[in-house]
């Protein structure tokens, strides 16, 4: 995969001397860089066009939030999201950001990483007895901008020294060059969203191929990181069982199962606004044609019985590789957990359990 490069970069004048902005200026030709007073005043254009221009700016607001996917109706893994970028250069057909950022689609990298880490440090110090799982891959791909911003060089050393937190860098890229030279000391998990080859090709334009993602996963494992895999979104299509079997075989032909921190399974879920955006953009081959029905939380998912069948199929194949793999379901109610996993952990219990294999 060729690392992503923007068509243009707008840097806030006041942020020019921040480490992130300095890195961007070193790595992007100066002819592509424009200085602006306030990136918020720049009109980003429509969703796809907005992804081609990188705003390098100060973040005004809190950095740390609870994962927005958690609802009272679902078993939650107690995940925290650290917001250091907004939007993503890729354009996956099913991405929730299409609806979430519809009115503000600019691709933003935040410069005040020191503020973010100070905010985080305060929380970690205030709760020394609690273990935190924190990710940067909710509002953005954790590594897509790394070749341009070098953000990992700030995050990994910070988490490497924190005894009560684990950072998850979640990605669909193979951009791990920055990571392999750093020592995570057991505190950083690099995880990949993986999908059937048909889905990667048709629905995830611009992202690394499955093979490239797995080669990158092996590289970071060899460099001392634990890795994770998110089979999410699971898409129901003609041949899904073979498609996902191929993914599982490819994963375990490449990585060491003993150094996997966690694996999640999550069915495709679409809010009504997201479904509307996907229809209007007409870029999806498989996403809308699955047997999706509205659930109690208003999101459309594959109907429950078929969803359970899909989860069981993947779970069975994963357990055949290693029955001790830490596997969890994302945003599913206790009743589905019970049917698939034979148990329904409470939220805190699940979060704690997922941390067991991240440290050594």
């Amino acid at each position, binding site marked *: 995969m060729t690392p992503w490069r923007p068509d243009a970069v707008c840097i806030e004048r006041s942020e020019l001397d921040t480490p992130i902005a300095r890195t961007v200026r070193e790595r992007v030709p100066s002819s592509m860089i424009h200085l602006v007073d306030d990136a918020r005043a720049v009109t980003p254009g429509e969703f796809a066009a907005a992804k081609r221009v990188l705003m390098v700016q100060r973040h005004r607001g809190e950095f740390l939030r609870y994962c927005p996917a958690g609802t009272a109706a679902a078993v939650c893994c107690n995940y925290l999201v650290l917001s250091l970028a907004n939007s993503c250069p890729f354009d996956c057909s099913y991405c929730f950001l299409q609806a979430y950022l519809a009115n503000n689609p600019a691709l933003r990298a935040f410069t005040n990483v020191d503020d973010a880490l100070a905010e985080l440090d305060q929380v970690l110090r205030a709760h020394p007895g609690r273990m935190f799982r924190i990710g940067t891959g909710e509002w953005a791909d954790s590594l897509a901008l790394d070749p341009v911003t070098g953000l990992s060089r700030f995050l990994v050393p910070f988490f490497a020294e924190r005894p009560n937190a684990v950072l998850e860098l979640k990605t669909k890229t193979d951009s791990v060059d920055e990571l392999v030279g750093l020592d995570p000391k057991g505190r950083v998990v690099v995880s990949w969203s993986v999908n059937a080859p048909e889905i990667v090709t048709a629905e995830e334009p611009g992202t690394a191929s499955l093979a490239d993602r797995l080669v990158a996963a092996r590289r970071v494992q060899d460099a001392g990181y634990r890795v994770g895999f998110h089979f999410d979104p699971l898409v129901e*299509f*003609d041949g899904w069982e073979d498609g996902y079997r191929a993914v599982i075989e490819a994963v375990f032909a490449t990585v060491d199962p003993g150094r996997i921190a966690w694996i999640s399974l999550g069915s495709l879920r679409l809010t009504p606004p997201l479904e509307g955006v996907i*229809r*209007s953009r*007409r870029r*999806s*081959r*498989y996403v*809308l*044609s699955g*047997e999706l*029905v*509205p*659930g*109690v939380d208003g999101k459309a998912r594959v*109907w*429950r*019985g*078929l*969803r*359970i*069948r899909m989860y*069981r199929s993947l779970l069975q194949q994963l357990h055949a590789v290693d029955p001790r793999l830490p596997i969890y379901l994302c945003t599913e109610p206790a*009743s589905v957990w019970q*049917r698939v996993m034979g148990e329904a952990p409470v939220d805190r219990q699940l979060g704690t359990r997922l941390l067991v294999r991240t440290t050594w």
Partner: protein
Amino acid sequence: MSDDAVRAYGRGRRFSDATMQRWLRHAAPDREAMLQLAERLRLGENQFRDLLDVLEDIASRQESAIATVIGTEPVAAVLARGLGRNETLRALRHALRRRRYPQLVQAETAMADLARRLRLPAWTRVEWPENLEGDELSVTIRAGSATELRARLGEVAAALARPEVDEMFRLLEGE
């Protein structure tokens, strides 16, 4: 048939620009098939949009064209039946749902079949969640007095001991 006819239909029914753009984005044979359907069933915008959603999804699922979906069984059979407008619409939605949700409809049909096999009295109703999106069955017993309710409850309890009930729950669990 020209796009003018499509636009004229949309204008006459005051379709929104967004719906018209969606319609006109389709290939000519699909646009025309949708126009024939709209004219035949005098579709308003919401009805048109709902049908277009389903037809697009089926076409995508089957890797075929909307015109093909409309022109083949079971949709073509519904349109050929000569029913009135509302009955045709209802039958069309039913036929399209079978194509759109083949596995779900199969499971729902199996559920209904199991419920029938319980041979419950007319004063009892077994219900399952819409789209099988849930894990509970409900059984309603109607009675006009406490004595009648107690008697009917005993009668139903015997019927509910049959293995069909276990199978119904297994269906909800995707088995």
